[in-house]
């Protein structure tokens, strides 16, 4: 299989599925408007529209506000337009996913490009970690010139050089596990179809492997987690990558919990469980109490599917470095560190905030320890748990990761607004994380697929642009390059 011939998919403009997309600004047009069409003419973003002699502000969400170079509010001859912030916009989001980050991700999912202005699309407002790190780039023209077509952002996942598949992903990210049951089949299909188009993978999570995913087997990672829900010999044989989930960042050291309401007949069949009863995925694997036990698990997968790559997903305790080395010696190809601030499903707030450390601390620790042990180039290190933007990807790679897993970003592309109510009642009211028959039909698979493709194509473009600025031809050159980063709290004044 020659994956190098992978064709990058095209961006197809894919607007919001709702009538009124949410923008940062609101433009109001008063009765004074004389329909001269001046605003339609000068707006670079297509905010205004003229039809049969009437001018309408159709796409106010695209307005970049004060960043606009040809502001319609000033150019209007009768001053009929007024601009103000959208109050709804300010009720959205939180410290990590600010309203700006949400809206810029929606822009990328619609257009495949980063926003033209008005929105901060690189960092959030958490006041630490990624949000205090900045990329240190040579001034334009200073780095070695690199052609865009020369830049490689792909990642080889098998670095052990054993008899398992040689797998390369074309973009430095793949989809993290979200189970059938926690999200709808529409969401699952959208993510997997997008992964397949982008030349990467997407994980099924712990909830079985629905038959609908069969056409995309070569892009599926199936998860073996503590509840072993939906794990069968046949599903292990079907895929190229198998992921062991020991723990997850959002609730490290705690099991998974699917509320009874979400156990619909379809979910129950898939998980071989009873309709309407809650399902607990225990913690930990009761068959694993040591690295030796873990090796037994890995060997078991290799006996069933000798060519499968084995990924080990762990959370980030103090001794995460030892866990990573242990996983390597047990035969894993990928060590996947899930930091404490990520996660998509429901989890106790006390766990999300307090248990285990943020990925920004864990990853450099693991990277350094693997180098000391002399095995860093034999294992692929994947980071997840709070990766929101292409800049986060570049930063965590510079801290020592080979690639990342995404989760929340995919959902934001599908217009998740992070209301945090995934678990209540019928599930997500916006049809993303639900198994309710009516609500899940709010998402059309084609639409969802294209939104996710667009978002990640925009990420890819940003990463290529960053690498070009750094004078690097491959993302591999950026791995562990902490000299390309500056932390604002420790920044020295320029001489």
């Amino acid at each position, binding site marked *: 299989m020659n994956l190098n011939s992978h064709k990058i998919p095209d961006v197809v403009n894919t607007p919001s599925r709702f009538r009124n997309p949410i923008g940062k600004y609101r433009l109001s047009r008063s009765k004074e408007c004389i329909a001269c069409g001046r605003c339609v003419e000068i707006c670079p973003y297509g905010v205004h529209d003229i039809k049969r002699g009437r001018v309408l502000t159709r796409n106010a969400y695209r307005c970049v506000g004060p960043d606009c170079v040809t502001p319609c509010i000033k150019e209007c001859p009768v001053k009929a337009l007024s601009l103000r912030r959208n109050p709804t916009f300010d009720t959205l989001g939180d410290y990590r996913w600010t309203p700006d980050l949400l809206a810029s991700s929606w822009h990328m999912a619609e257009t495949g490009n980063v926003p033209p202005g008005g929105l901060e699309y690189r960092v959030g407002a958490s006041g630490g970690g990624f949000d205090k790190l900045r990329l240190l780039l*040579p001034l334009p023209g200073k780095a070695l010139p690199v052609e865009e077509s020369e830049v490689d952002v792909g990642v080889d996942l098998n670095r052990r050089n054993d008899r398992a598949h040689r797998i390369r992903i074309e973009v430095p990210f793949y989809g993290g596990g979200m189970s059938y049951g926690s999200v709808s089949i529409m969401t699952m299909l959208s993510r997997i179809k997008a992964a397949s188009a982008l030349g990467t993978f997407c994980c099924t999570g712990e909830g079985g492997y629905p038959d609908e995913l069969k056409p995309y087997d070569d892009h599926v990672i199936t998860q073996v987690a503590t509840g072993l829900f939906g794990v069968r010999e046949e599903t292990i044989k079907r895929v190229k990558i198998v992921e062991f989930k020991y723990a997850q960042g959002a609730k490290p050291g705690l099991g998974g919990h699917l509320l009874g309401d979400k156990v619909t007949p379809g979910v129950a069949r898939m998980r071989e469980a009873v309709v309407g009863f809650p399902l607990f995925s225990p913690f930990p694997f009761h068959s694993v109490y040591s690295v030796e036990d873990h090796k037994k698990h890995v060997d078991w997968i290799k006996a069933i599917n000798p060519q499968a790559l084995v990924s080990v997903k762990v959370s980030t305790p103090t001794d995460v470095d030892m*866990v990573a080395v242990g996983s390597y010696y047990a035969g894993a190809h990928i060590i996947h560190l899930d930091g404490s601030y990520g996660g998509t499903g429901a989890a106790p707030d006390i766990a999300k905030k307090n248990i285990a450390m943020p990925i920004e601390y864990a990853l450099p620790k693991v990277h350094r320890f693997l180098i000391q042990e002399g095995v860093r180039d034999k294992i692929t290190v994947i980071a997840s748990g709070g990766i929101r933007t292409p800049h986060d990807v570049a930063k965590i790679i510079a801290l020592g990761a080979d690639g990342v897993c995404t989760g929340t970003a995919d959902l934001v592309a599908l217009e998740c607004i992070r*209301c945090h109510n995934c678990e209540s009642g019928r599930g997500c009211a916006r049809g993303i994380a639900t198994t309710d028959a009516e609500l899940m039909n709010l998402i059309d698979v084609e639409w969802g697929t294209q939104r996710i493709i667009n978002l990640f194509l925009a990420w890819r473009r940003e990463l290529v642009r960053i690498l070009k600025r750094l004078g690097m031809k491959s993302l591999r050159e950026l791995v562990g390059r902490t000299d390309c980063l500056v932390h604002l709290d*420790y920044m020295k004044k320029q001489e």
Partner: protein
Amino acid sequence: MPKKYAIHTKPAPNRFKAITPSGIIAWEEGCLKCAVCVKKRCVYRVYEQRGLDSRQMVDSIDNQCMNCLRCVQGCPKELIHKSSNPEFKSLGDTHWTPDIIAKLWAQAETGKIPVSGAGYPGPFSGDGFDAMWTDMSEIVRPTRDGIHGREYISTAVDLGKTPRHLVFNEKGELQSRIPKFLDIPIPVLMRVPSFGAVSEETIRGWAMAAKRLGTFLCLPVHQGKKHLDRYRSHLMPILPEGLLKSGRGLRGLRAVELPWTETWDEALNSVRKAMPSALISVHLPLDKAVKQRALALARAGVSMIHLEGSYSGRAMDDDSTAMKDVLRSVHRALIEEGIRDEMTLVASGGLALAEHVAKAILCGADAVVIDFPILIALECRMCRRCVKGLSCPVEIEKAEAPWVASRVYNLFGAFHNQLLEVMGAMGIRDARRLRGEVGRAMFFEELDKPVFGTLGEVKEGYELE
């Protein structure tokens, strides 16, 4: 194993509509009267169940809205909007934040631990206990059938003095005198807060809860009136300064608290004489002198020291010093002195969430005392109108004792379950072993600089992005 400690919570509804972070603004003007209005299609049926509370003049809609924004995004005339609620933002202060207050309300109402989807929404880290994470264990689990299983995690701790060793005679009979100690099933005591629209009925409710929970309520001695007689075994009165003349009126009490003064030893002796069988706790302000004073008290055989931090969880005399650092240093000093295991250390001041309980214990306390959370459990908005002599917007003084007790009981139920969550993840099965276990904690100061401290150089000819 001893019987498992369980707090059986049941919902205790709010008496007033809670203040919400945002509100719905829906205009009527320009409405097209669509046959299938977005309001009718609300997933949570918020508009259908809408009502006006005539007493409070509050529209119930904001309390039911789940912020999915489908109506906002669906209305063809864009007549529906959401807007942040300034009243919510102005709740409390910088320590007792609107978010903390709202979380305490919800826990007291439902008895359930706060759970939400879609990752952690808060800041990266912060001051005090926010600069701390608790550890987890990848493969080791303290119990074999889950944290709520039969093989349970114990949150019980002892208050009082444990002897260094036991002495037996030749016949194998115990010779040592066993000092007085009390065990409580949850490492949280409560104290009547320093302000609040509190009535005798409120205090009775808190005392009821303390007894049901098996913990203690600390209160100024003059508040411990006759109506609390049934709960005396679970009260810990705070004695006035000075010598105690007689133990009259203090019968039936198992514990008392004594404020620290320069002449604490005389006062302590008078209390010991008057109440020979009671556990005596000395109340020490958490300030610059705390370490020396705590050492002196411990050397003199005081069995329990209560360190009281400020209203916002800091040193009493220095706002830049966090309680966690003082606790760690006092705990260490007592260990170095070799007397840590012979006394009990409890901490109070600004402790607001279940995570603070676990973190204070990790820093060296045996147990904690909470004050304002038991008031916020009663819907207090921390508006301080009562301090100015104005009426309480949620009429706390009128609440009946059983309701007060069930709200606080629920709050403790939620705290207990959250303690089980963090202890379970840490692989710790007994709250007594959590104390001072900093190996199961991670601190910002120890993590941030080693990772990022060297990332400070901006080379010439480079720019930041």
